[in-house]
């Protein structure tokens, strides 16, 4: 098994933390994983991508061309990266910011995650909602590992936000048709 | 001729310092590198530091100083002495570490290393031999070469329009907070030799006390590349060099 996940968005949208949460979940589940975030040089408003490769054996290439799963956080990310999806792959799009998308040969789940996060009371969990949708829809990772991963990734002083994050991830999972 | 008994009874008033080996130095006649070595060696002995001193030997006529000093030695690349000394001091703090550097080594290729070592207040001592030329490589211009001074690379004399003015290392370092002791001395007569020794001693004392960076600039002769006899070289220091490089204690240290 080799699952290649690629996420793209703009700085501040939680693309980095979504990537690292996914990696921690894979680790919790006893899988092998490789995770890298890349960002554009400008400090504000630049693009950010996270690549997470999960495998049940050795992770080969950390570099991906076409990917199995694509998480698109906004329109710029969609314009740039939509073509990366492998046929039969999964796209989770934050439709609050991507607008409507059309894909030929892959499964598309559109989640108005920014709006839903605002309704939960904190736009910061947009990424967690998208993560929940991806995890549930793809079925490679189990949602039960989310809390442990969150505890590792979140600094101690933010642990008070754990319940909100769990709510968000479950809400995301519920969006899977 | 005194006989053996006379010798045994005699009081020793002058001998080779224990911090120097018996290896014969190979400096030119009239060169004050040898005097500077001796002064440092006397100080190491008087402060009882021989057993824990490391000399960082640099590149210039003094490149064989590891043969002359009876202490542990590390040979550094040209200009890098203060960085090497820092590495030794940081990983072996009880060592007494000094570099012995010429003006090419310190003021040309190694200016950055000495400034940053001083700026960190590194507890090392630098003995800086300013003889206004690159001696070892056959008399080329150094940053410290005097205006008008003929060298093999300033055949018509140093022209400030081309090569700028002489580099004043002590004046440059004097404003740096990490400096615990800083002085310029020379070695052209008994009085200046005594003063030079006093400064060298203070510099090492500052290191022993962990007070910070210490440096003594010694205005030195290079009769060969000044195209002078030894006595003329001494006179040239008095008349020309000290005009450009006045003797001064820039940063005083009291134990």
């Amino acid at each position, binding site marked *: 098994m080799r699952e290649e996940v690629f996420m793209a968005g703009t700085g501040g949208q939680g693309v980095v933390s979504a990537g690292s949460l996914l990696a921690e979940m894979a*680790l919790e589940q006893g899988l092998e994983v490789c995770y890298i975030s890349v960002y554009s040089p400008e400090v504000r408003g630049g693009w950010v991508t996270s690549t997470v490769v999960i495998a049940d054996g050795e992770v080969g*290439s950390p570099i991906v*061309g076409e990917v199995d799963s694509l998480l698109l956080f906004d329109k710029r990310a969609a314009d740039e990266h939509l073509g990366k999806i492998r046929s039969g792959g999964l796209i989770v799009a934050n439709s609050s910011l991507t607008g409507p998308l059309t894909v030929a040969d892959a499964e598309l789940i559109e989640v108005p995650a920014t709006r839903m996060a605002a309704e939960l009371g904190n736009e910061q969990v947009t990424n967690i909602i998208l993560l929940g949708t991806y995890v549930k829809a793809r079925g490679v990772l189990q949602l039960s590992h989310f809390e442990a991963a969150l505890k590792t990734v979140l600094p101690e002083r933010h642990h008070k936000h754990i319940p909100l994050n769990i709510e968000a991830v479950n809400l995301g999972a519920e969006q899977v048709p | 001729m005194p006989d053996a008994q006379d010798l045994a009874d005699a009081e020793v008033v002058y001998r080779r310092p224990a911090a120097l080996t018996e290896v014969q130095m190979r400096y030119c006649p009239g060169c004050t590198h040898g005097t500077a070595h001796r002064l440092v060696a006397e100080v190491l002995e008087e402060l009882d530091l021989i057993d824990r001193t490391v000399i960082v030997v640099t590149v210039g006529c003094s490149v064989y100083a*590891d043969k002359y000093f009876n202490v542990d030695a*590390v040979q550094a690349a040209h200009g*890098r002495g203060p*960085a090497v000394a820092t*590495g030794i001091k*940081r990983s072996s703090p009880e*060592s007494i570490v000094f570099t012995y550097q010429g003006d090419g080594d310190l003021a040309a290729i190694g200016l950055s290393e000495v400034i940053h070592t001083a700026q960190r207040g590194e507890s090392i001592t630098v003995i800086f031999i300013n003889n206004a030329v690159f001696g070892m490589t056959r008399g080329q211009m150094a940053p410290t070469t005097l205006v008008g001074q003929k060298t093999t690379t300033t055949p018509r004399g140093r022209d400030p329009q081309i090569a700028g003015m002489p580099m004043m290392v002590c004046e440059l370092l004097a404003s740096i907070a990490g400096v615990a002791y800083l002085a310029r001395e020379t070695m052209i007569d008994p009085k200046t030799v005594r003063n030079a020794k006093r400064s060298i001693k203070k510099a090492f004392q500052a290191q022993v006390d962990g007070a910070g960076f210490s440096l003594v600039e010694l205005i030195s002769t290079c009769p060969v590349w000044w195209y002078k006899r030894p006595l003329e070289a001494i006179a040239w220091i008095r008349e020309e060099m000290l005009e450009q490089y006045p003797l001064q204690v820039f940063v005083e240290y009291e134990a």
Partner: protein
Amino acid sequence: MSKRVMMTGNEAVAEGAIAAGCRYFFGYPITPQNAIPQYMAEHLAEVGGVYLQAESELASINLVYGAAATGAYVMTSSSSPGISLMQEGLSYMLGSELPCVVVNMVRGGPGLGNIGAAQSDYWLATRGAGHGDGRCLTFAPHRVQEMYDWAAEAFPIAQKYRCPVMILGDGLLANMAEPVRLRERQEPPPRDQDWAIGGRRNGRPRRIVNSLWTDVPVMEALNIRIQERFEQAAENETRWEEYGNDDPTFVFAAYGISARICKTVIDRLAEEGIRARLIRPVSLFPFPHKPFAEWAQRVERIVCVELSMGQFVEDVRLAVAGECPVDLIWRTGGVVLTPEEVMARVKELL
């Protein structure tokens, strides 16, 4: 066994060094390896070590030189342009027979280049160490766990052969995170080398660390001694990994990040019924000639994959010695190969 934790290559190589007993680190910031000095600045203090930021890489390597002379485990790290500046110091360390560990997280070059992942310092890493007859022993991990493990292995190897050891990574290996299983941090070994200077002599004869030997036969003898150590290292420290089909039609040659790409390509080719194998040198100097010489007799071709314009392939060709064709697939300047691109190009060759 301890729990695995996610770490970047930068963090892993730094923690691996501390775990091995390294207590001295001198460096100067340069992307993509800034997390190494940052990690050292944060964590060396916990174990009574010394982190010092130098004013340049010239200074870094000379700080290392000084600390190495005292017999300490000492390390520096940089990326390509900084490693260029360290060449002088490395040469002096070889001439003075001093051990140290240098990490090079290679970036795109020449010149200031960029911070992309590249392998274009292969020659610098395997031939380099400035002027003179010496080189660094060079090892190229390809996973973050290996970064950690090699940091630990590098110090005793450096001490054994009394020379700098280089750990060669790249911008990707530096910044990607993978699970690492950590070991207990060890105390530094005693500095009882018979060449180490410093401390109180307590009557021992004085020692000199020196690379100036004007007596030419003495210098030649030193070079021979260094060379003999390299020959011993070739015997004891040559490492490589093989991966893939046991009866391949062709063999990939790749190290570091490129080898990871090849592994995925091999798995995908296998799904299409194409039999391929990988030889991955872990030690770049000493170079593992043997597996190349052997497989060259049995396969149609060897396909070299590197993120540089034909540097690594020269060593492969030397090892293959004309026994089979050697092809080269490359990208350079910080551009990385994707598995798809390697697949497409290798199929054109077959």
